[in-house]
């Protein structure tokens, strides 16, 4: 399995899209490209499993290394471990669903799909890179497409939101940059190579400075409290696929970075700052949940709930146990699928009712059973219903968090647990007001989902359920990788 394919394929798709003339051609080529990505991701997943089953125990599989800026000791170094494979799968799911959902974008279709594909390119590259430079490169690639997606195709105060998002994310990546340079010059050898750096003993002082830089920098992407304010505005203004990508993929870049770069490379730093991370993420979890409770706009509801859910990711990382870290990764995957689906559903509803205010809706089950069913599923996933992915992820985080026996961690865990109640409150409120209750007459003539929307929803639901019902495959994928990280953190 050649990992460059994961980069080349979106690139090829982008070129093909550029060459297409009519919007129909554009859509189909995007869909074909996304499907190819999807298949490629699945192939990657299965070959990865096969390799592992055959006993290939090296930390990263399918490594390749090309020369790139050798004078800076940069190389185009790619490779995957379980965590990356999980994230790639997530990306593939979200991309194909996003492409499907945006089927009736009529304004500048070509540009729209081009940006979507570029975004996916950035995400794939980010997840497979083993060199911090190209990791950073791909991290930033993903920013501008988001800006344009929101700014051009968005709604509401889109320019403001787009600006805020781009600037805050750039701010985050600026911090990341400084942190990376610290790593580059801080180790005993100037290198950006992740594996080399991981074998190095990075001085404590460097870790103490660089860890917070990197963690906060990546944390901005993952809605680390208090750097989350781009989330509600950005998500709510973005077009449907934009929100899906934003919440489903882009926010995961941050979590992955926090884990793979900050925590893995600087274990002492991680231990040093773990408590702060825990406090912040616990605040984010509860505070996000409570703030969600007061929202009336569906997209805001999901956006704030994303703050809350992504808090689990950071909490898991901050807890520094193997299970918690595995849980954090699962939560990333789960939240990615779920929130993408949620945004897709919101988009479908909005397209029909032309409102996102929950107060103005009601009884939509009657006219759009499919869409509301999806809404139910996604809502239930969000509140952690067993059988859906959210439960598995959250429970793993809780289990992992609980393995720290001291009162501080205990209190944080319990506080985080409390969010499941608040989540139930806001999710049921949203669902109750949207799908249930008496229906407004003007909605009686609305149509249910079309084939593309159905397909998108089904793909994402399949992912959610696959994790929810049979979490062991994800666990098998993620846990060994998490163990590697934990061994480093534990100083073995």
């Amino acid at each position, binding site marked *: 399995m050649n990992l460059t394919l994961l980069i080349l394929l979106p690139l090829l798709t982008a070129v093909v899209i550029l060459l297409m003339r009519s919007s129909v051609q554009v859509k189909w080529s995007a869909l074909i490209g996304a499907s190819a990505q999807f298949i490629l991701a699945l192939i990657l997943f299965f070959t990865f*499993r096969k390799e*592992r*089953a055959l006993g290939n125990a090296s930390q990263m599989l399918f490594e390749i290394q090309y020369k790139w800026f050798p004078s800076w000791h940069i190389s185009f170094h790619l490779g995957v471990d379980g965590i990356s494979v999980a994230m790639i799968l997530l990306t593939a799911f979200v991309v194909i669903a996003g492409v499907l959902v945006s089927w009736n974008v009529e304004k500048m279709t070509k540009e729209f799909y081009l940006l979507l594909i570029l975004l996916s390119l950035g995400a794939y590259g980010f997840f497979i890179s083993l060199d911090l430079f190209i990791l950073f490169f791909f991290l930033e690639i993903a920013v501008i497409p988001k800006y344009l997606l929101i700014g051009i195709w968005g709604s509401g105060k889109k320019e403001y939101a787009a600006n*805020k998002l781009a*600037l*805050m994310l750039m701010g985050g990546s600026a911090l990341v940059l400084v942190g990376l340079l610290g790593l580059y010059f801080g180790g005993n050898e100037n290198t950006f190579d992740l594996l080399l750096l991981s074998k190095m003993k990075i001085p404590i002082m460097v870790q103490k400075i660089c860890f917070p830089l990197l963690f906060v920098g990546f944390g901005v992407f993952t809605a680390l409290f*208090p750097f*989350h*304010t*781009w989330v*509600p*505005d950005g998500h709510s203004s973005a077009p449907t696929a934009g929100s899906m990508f934003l919440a489903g993929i882009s926010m995961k870049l941050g979590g992955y970075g926090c884990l793979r770069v900050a925590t893995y490379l600087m274990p002492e730093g991680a231990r040093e700052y773990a408590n702060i991370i825990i406090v912040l993420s616990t605040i984010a979890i509860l*505070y996000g949940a*409570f*703030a969600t*409770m*007061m929202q009336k706009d569906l997209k805001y509801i999901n956006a704030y709930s994303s703050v809350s859910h992504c808090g689990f990711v950071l909490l898991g990382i901050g807890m520094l146990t*193997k*299970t918690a870290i595995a849980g954090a990764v699962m939560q990333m995957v789960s939240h990615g699928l779920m929130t993408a689906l949620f945004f897709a559903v919101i988009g479908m509803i909005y397209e029909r009712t032309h409102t996102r205010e929950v107060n103005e809706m009601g*009884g939509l*089950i*009657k006219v759009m059973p499919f869409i509301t069913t999806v809404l139910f599923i996604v809502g*239930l996933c969000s*509140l*952690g*219903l*067993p*059988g859906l992915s959210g*439960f*598995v992820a959250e*429970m*793993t985080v*809780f*289990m*992992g968090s*609980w*393995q720290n*026996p001291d009162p501080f961690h205990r209190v944080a*865990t*319990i506080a985080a*647990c409390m969010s*499941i*109640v608040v989540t*139930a*409150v806001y999710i*049921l*409120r949203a669902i*109750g007001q949207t*799908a*249930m*209750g*008496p*229906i407004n007459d003007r909605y009686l003539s609305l149509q249910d989902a079309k084939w593309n929307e159905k397909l998108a929803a089904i793909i994402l639901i399949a992912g959610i359920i696959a994790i929810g019902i*049979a*979490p*062991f*495959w994800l*666990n*098998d994928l993620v*846990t060994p990788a998490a163990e590697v990280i934990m061994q480093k953190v534990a100083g073995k």
Partner: protein
Amino acid sequence: MNEFLQIKLLGIFSLGMNLGWALLMIPLLPLLGFLSLGLFGKKYLKQSAGIFATLLLAASAFLSLHIAYGYFFKYGKLEGAYQKIIPIQFTWLQFSPGLSIDLGILLDPISVMMLVVVTFISLMVHIYSLAYMKGEERYPTYYSFLGLFTFSMLGLVMASNIFQLYIFWELVGVSSFLLIGYYYDRPSAVAACKKAFIITRFADLGFLIGILILSFYGGTLDFNSLIEKLTSTNSTEFKTIASASFVGISALTWALVLVFIGGAGKSALFPLHVWLPDAMEGPTPVSALIHAATMVVAGVFLVARLFPVFSMSEVALKVVSIIGIISALFAAVIACTQTDIKRVLAYSTMSQIGFMMFSLGVSGQAGESGLGFTAAMFHLFTHALFKALLFLGAGSVIHFIHSNEMKDMGGLRKYLPITHITFLIACLAISGMPPFAGFFSKEEILLAAYHHNATIYWIALATSGLTSFYMFRLYFSIFWNKEYIAHGEVHGEGGFVMMMPLILLSLGAAAAGFIPFGHFVTADGNLLESAFHLQFSIAPVALGLLGIFTAMWMYKKQNNRPDTIAHSMNSFYKLAYHKFYLDELYLFVTKKILFNLIGKPAAWFDKNVVNGLVNATGNSTVFISEKMKGFQSGKVQQYAIYFLAGVIGLAVLFIYIWK
């Protein structure tokens, strides 16, 4: 780890292949019903959904009877004690070595009993609904939800792992949510289903934390090994959990109390019961299945499942018994004042579950002292039968009269003869009249309480009197009292399909008491011969009769006695009528505190402070840039002055200051 499915087929072969498959099919058949009806019901099974689901469930019920027979009479016993058998188990989610969520099937007396109860009641409800729900627009959906519920409930009772139990616990919650909200266009139903879910969810939080504590100290989530580790007083696990303490209470107690909170929430015990009466917004057969016979006893089942551990902590047991008895009395009092017949039944359910709970609370672990356990399970069993019967009967009445309110009823015995008879049987059973089922189980409970704690006993006794009063209040109000004046065309009782479950259940309610329950279900698996003292039953039966006659006196004929009495104890009546204002209290807590004091400030803070800071950063940058524009004055000489100032400044800086 590399296998997709790691099924440990423990003992499947020793028990014969059939058992494993049969066991698996029991929950999977309803699941199949759920999936097929949920996915394709609307299109392909619009008419035949009910039959389809019923057949599936019948098969499932048959299989569970088969299993029960096999377990109790063939292979369950080893050296005189019923064994815990885990025929199927596989690792679902591995947290760390030893700590994993396993999905499996645990067979022991209570789970087998619950299997029977759940499948049987569910089957009855399925059959009943064939007629009751006919013509509903979302008929297939209804059956698919029923299937989901049955599946989850079966998974719950067969759970071999505490986390598995939690998983199905949640699933049960959600299917209950779906079924309560079945009439989604009624705002009250929507409110009720949300309420039910959120309150049980809140309780589940306790359960979850309890699990976390147990798993941490026990090092496992598996029921058998957990119980094994936490019950032997010299194991290290037990020592640490008993010695670790928080606020002066041992971790073990904390864990158990928290787990119990979960159970209390699902079982609608005081003070987490407020969702149950509202849950009556669901279709009546659903109430029969979920909110009477099966789901609400999940809490009891949970405590019973962990009973060996509970018995290690006196405090925890005390809590269980106190909450149980309070709920029993409290609900009984309220039930006397309610006018919605389903609500009366709901409160009676709560009261009966209170009985089971305190019965567990007063039980010991082994031998004779384990009577409470057996009694609770027995009562659970019989209660399921007669309460389901009551609800179905009520459903039949509602079906006929299209109202839930007592004031719209009266004199229905002529119109609904079968319903009348079966309802009467159920009332007698719940009132503990011999020889109906309730008599035996309640007798045992009272006996256990009597041996253990006098206060509880006396309160329980009073409550059982109240029980017969309010049940017969209900009975008389529906079937006697004023004459029924039919408006327009009167259709008769539901057909055979609706009546058959009533008849079957009434048979059960009449006869189930004679099952020697102590032979099958006991706390330690050994046989428990319950000594039956006739003289002991005098007091409860007499009290029950007193209740019946009082009810008869007040409600058999239309008169103003109830009003007078209600008037005479005005304030108390009002208090009880308004369910002691607990709903209002909850409303206050959620609206005023959760929403206004936490949610609103959080949202405000986010919008103004956090977001404001971000905006302020941007604005201040712009502001500074605006303020600085004077440097670029357009005057060359000004520029030159800055230029020279720069030169001199740099020179001075680097010659004298920054060397």
